[in-house]
């Protein structure tokens, strides 16, 4: 059955390419957008078919004698196809109204269609070559999409180079890992690879290579440097797709490796995944909390959420050998819930950032403000997305984090000392991440939407066109929906992992049978509504007697003339944090005081500039690049133009070969 689904998607891709190339300019956005949305929906259906066990096989002929290149999604692949298809559909609908300038060109639409289909095929592939083919197609099409606005900003080109280089590194690592495994198993089918998980040095090597490869694609900390560069430069609907869908394939790979291909009880592997996840979560959200560019903030928050997912995977593979299998399964379910929750709220946030960018032309939080009255729908949906990202109750984020925390605290530390140490540290890291996420998204929402506009662009903002609002509302609704009825998402997640639906309960709530913990958001919401009624009644009564009076000046402790520039900006909002975490953020601050020309003691202007560096970049990447550059420079005098040198090379080679051949 799923092979028909995949065929439909490929047919729709062909249609999308034709429509993008041939449709008249003014119709192109609508038609292409709808066809791409069609691909997304077809993805959702195929995913659902795979989840409900209707697997089918579709083989693609390849010239080289590899073995059949097959596309038949397992339930786990189906789950990710479902998530990516949904995100793709929402972003496609949104992009109909959003695309302008180079993003509306033919190449961008073709690349978007190829990008979405490639992601679906990665999740649908059942053998190494299909996986790698779809993986690289996804990389190529996303590079083209990131390059859409290369003529507008100089930073796009350098960002794309970082992105292309890191993606190629991830591809090579995954290729090496799979090559080791296929050498071990003697075939390139996932089924055979899964069967041959021997615990040898080769499988350790394969595990590290695959983990690093998928971590590079997912944006895990040591390999995350491309994420805060590529996402802000891409058009917003593309950054939404990349952040909400593409990085999930890194998580898909990690889950595939830890649960099917290389299942093993060696604790150092799970500690590696756990450690890397924790580091990414804390470091990602720390950088997000001090970022003032809205898209860079969202990109770093993606690193944080991916870190939490890897933490969940690490925890589950750490717990499994110590007998508590249902706790380990719950951790995996938590990981998949995190995937769905992050897909929902990150899409909302990026699409919201896109509509802000389109309305105000600004991406820097320090120049926004006062949009809540000018762009009601965007601010409402962005608010819901921010609630989800901050994991506050009644949203998808909260449910995912709750299940994760439940699985961590029921870790059963009594049996093993390592668990007794790692579980509390993990809970502490998750908590710190949640706290900083709270801070980040209050800052993002508060500075961007509330108070008075801090720039010309922000003051003339208008609400975005219908298709963008439709996309935003659907995404925000999914954040609340997944939050209020978590039973559905938990059953889907546990079916994806092949656990049956042990963990779902009636009335939409979750009943983690193994852990004895239950969560019913529905009744909680009812209780809140019951409690809010008297408060509202009192307020309305008071309002009728004493209506609100408008004054032309806020109190401001003395009614001093208050200009928008006196308001707190994103940089100042995060200043206490950058001071507390200064050893890992390395802020460089300089204050420039310009005195007035007449009198030296009168100050004309004070400028405060702050630059935060990414410690991984400055400590790890720049030295490596420096070494490569020096090697490049040194290699230049190998080819110095003198023919005698070249002849000397040949002569030495001749002598060496003679020696080798005779001795």
């Amino acid at each position: 059955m799923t092979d028909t689904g995949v065929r439909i998607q490929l047919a729709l891709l062909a249609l999308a390419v034709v429509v993008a190339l041939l449709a008249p300019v003014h119709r192109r956005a609508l038609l292409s957008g709808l066809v791409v949305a069609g691909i997304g929906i077809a993805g959702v259906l195929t995913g659902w078919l795979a989840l409900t066990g209707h697997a089918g096989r579709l083989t693609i002929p390849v010239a080289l004698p590899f073995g059949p290149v097959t596309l038949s999604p397992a339930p786990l692949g189906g789950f990710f196809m479902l998530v990516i298809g949904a995100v793709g559909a929402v972003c496609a609908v949104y992009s109909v109204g959003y695309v302008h300038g180079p993003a509306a060109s033919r190449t961008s639409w073709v690349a978007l269609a190829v990008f979405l289909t490639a992601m679906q095929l990665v999740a649908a592939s059942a053998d190494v070559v299909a996986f790698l083919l779809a993986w690289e197609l996804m990389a190529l099409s996303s590079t083209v999409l990131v390059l859409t606005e290369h003529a507008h900003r100089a930073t796009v080109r350098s960002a794309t180079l970082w992105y292309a280089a890191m993606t190629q590194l991830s591809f090579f690592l995954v290729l090496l890992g799979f090559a080791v495994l296929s050498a071990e198993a003697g075939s390139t089918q996932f089924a055979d690879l899964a069967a041959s998980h021997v615990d040898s040095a080769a499988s350790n090597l394969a595990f590290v290579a695959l983990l690093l490869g998928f971590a590079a694609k997912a944006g895990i900390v040591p390999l995350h440097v491309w994420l805060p560069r590529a996402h802000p430069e891409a058009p917003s609907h593309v950054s939404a797709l990349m952040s909400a869908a593409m990085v999930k394939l890194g998580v898909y790979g990690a889950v595939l490796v830890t649960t099917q291909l290389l299942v093993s009880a060696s604790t150092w592997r799970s500690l590696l995944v756990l450690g890397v996840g924790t580091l990414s979560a804390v470091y990602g959200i720390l950088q997000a909390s001090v970022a003032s560019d809205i898209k860079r903030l969202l990109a770093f928050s993606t690193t944080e959420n991916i870190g939490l997912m890897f933490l969940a995977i690490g925890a589950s593979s750490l717990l499994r050998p110590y007998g508590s299998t249902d706790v380990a399964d719950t951790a995996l379910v938590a990981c998949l819930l995190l995937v769905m929750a992050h897909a929902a709220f990150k899409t909302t946030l990026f699409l919201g950032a896109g509509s802000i960018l389109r309305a105000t032309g600004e991406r820097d939080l320090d120049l926004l403000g006062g949009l809540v009255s000018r762009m009601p729908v965007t601010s409402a949906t962005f608010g819901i997305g921010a609630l989800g990202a901050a994991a506050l109750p009644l949203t998808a984020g909260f449910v995912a984090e709750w299940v994760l925390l439940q699985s961590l605290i029921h870790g059963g530390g009594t049996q093993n000392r390592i668990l007794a140490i790692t579980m509390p540290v993990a809970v502490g890291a998750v908590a710190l991440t949640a706290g900083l996420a709270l801070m980040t998204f209050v800052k993002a929402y508060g500075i961007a939407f509330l108070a008075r506009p801090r720039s010309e662009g922000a003051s003339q903002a208008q609400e975005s066109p219908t298709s963008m609002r439709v996309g935003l509302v659907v995404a925000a609704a999914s954040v609340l929906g997944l939050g209020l009825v978590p039973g559905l998402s938990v059953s889907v997640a546990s079916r994806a992992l092949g656990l049956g639906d042990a963990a779902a309960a009636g009335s939409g709530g979750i009943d983690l049978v193994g852990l004895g913990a239950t969560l019913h958001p529905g009744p909680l919401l009812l209780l809140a509504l019951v409690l809010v009624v008297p408060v509202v009644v009192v307020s309305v009564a008071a309002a009728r007697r004493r209506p609100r009076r408008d004054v032309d000046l806020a109190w401001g402790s003395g009614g001093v003339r208050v200009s928008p520039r006196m308001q707190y900006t994103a940089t100042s909002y995060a200043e206490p944090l950058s001071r507390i975490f200064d050893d890992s953020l390395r802020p460089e601050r300089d204050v420039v005081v310009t005195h007035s020309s007449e009198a030296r003691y009168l100050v004309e202007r004070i400028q405060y500039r702050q630059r935060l560096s990414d410690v991984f970049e400055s400590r790890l990447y720049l030295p490596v690049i420096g070494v490569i550059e020096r090697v490049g420079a040194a290699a230049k005098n190998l080819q110095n133009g003198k023919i005698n040198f070249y002849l000397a090379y040949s002569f030495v080679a001749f002598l060496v070969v003679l020696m080798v051949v005779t001795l």
Partner: protein
Amino acid sequence: MGVLLIAPLAACLLLGAGVVGLRRTWLNRYAGVLASAVVLVSGLAITTQVLGGATPTALDGLLRADALTAFMLSAVGAVGLTATWGGLAAPGSTSARAYAYPALIVAFLLAMSLAVLADNLGILWVAIEATTITTAFLVGHHRTRTALEAAWKYVILGSVGVAIALLGIVLLYAATVAAGGPTLSWVALMRPNLGLDPGMVKMAAGLTLLGFATKAGLAPMHSWLPDAHSQAPAEVSGLMSGVLLSVAFYGILRVQAVTDAVIGPGLMRGLLVAGGLLSVAEAGALILRQRDLKRMLAYSSIEHMGVIALAAAVGGPLAIGAALLHMLGHGLAKSSVFVVSGRILAVEGTTQIAGLRALMTRRPGLAVPLLAAMAALLGMPPFVLFFTEVAIVVAGFQRGMGWVLTVAVGLLLVAFIGLARHTGDMAFGAATVDEEPTGSVEPSDTVDRSWHGPRLPLFAALGVTAVVGFAAGPFADLLGQAARVLGGGQ
């Protein structure tokens, strides 16, 4: 049956004589295209015969065509067609007097076809040396000081390197004389248990490999390649980079097949791994700080030949098939990108990377084919180089050469970063560097959409590279037979 083998050679001879004799303008202009068309057609015809099970021979055994030859001949024809047709000079610019250039191109194609068709290793050597001779004046065609320097280095280094191969072939012949059956014919040499003396064959193998490695552009014998390919006219460097390197490597494959049967794969595998890794390392390092587009492309050829050498070192049906497909894919993509670089030189006046800015916005007609071809060379799907690189790595690990491939992949990443950076610098960015474009992206008049030359060859070449990866059916059988012909069985 044998007439098909003689057809390409005779046609090229006829064409060459016609060019020299008749000195017509149109003949001068289309000579190259006609010659490569003939080679391609005869290659495909031989392929159909070979797939039918026959191995035609001609001139009482001097020429023979097995699956490998058919594949290589078609490759020579295809790449030749791309280069000559793509690099076709503007209608008015060829004069009747300039007959030397087209004649040499036809001679060059003749030499390569002979090399591929020859069954006798001696004739193979003579043909490869003939390619150096015919391209000497083509490299020096521009008559500038640097072209002259490139030509001198090319001839000296090329001939001296290949002389080592002659020494190897002579020793091989001596070994056959000592074993009683004096022959240089490849078919004869491939007969089992000829009783050749292993010591002699080992020495012959090493020297021949080193000699042909010079023409194949493997390090450390590659120093002539960047100068020759950057100074030669676009279509010549396209031909040389695209298919001459592969024909030289075809020689190595033939000799490897013979010697592996006698002394086992150990020696050739070691030498090929050393040559391959050195090539990829040196190419990667030198691409990083490269300042000239054509030199960068030349180094990329060295890198790809290094990858092919590794594939040959790995051996086995998958790796050999991947090596052959890699030769075809690389040939087509490289000749297209050299043709485009020729057009860039003609239009922009320079191939210095620093001098080319924002091609995508100013000259999309040149930037789009450049980017497509570079994507193919960087190993992006759906182009065939992606499949071959994956196949080589997987085959490498399956046959126990994991560490070599890991190092190679690391070096390929360095080369990828270098190539991607330079291509990005040239193609992308704002049109007017001094101020950001305001309002509309570009007034349309400064955007030059013309392709400055025929489009069809570039479309065809890149199209074939994109499709051939998925082409099962007859093509895959040809590839399988070619790999088996080389004794890829072990």
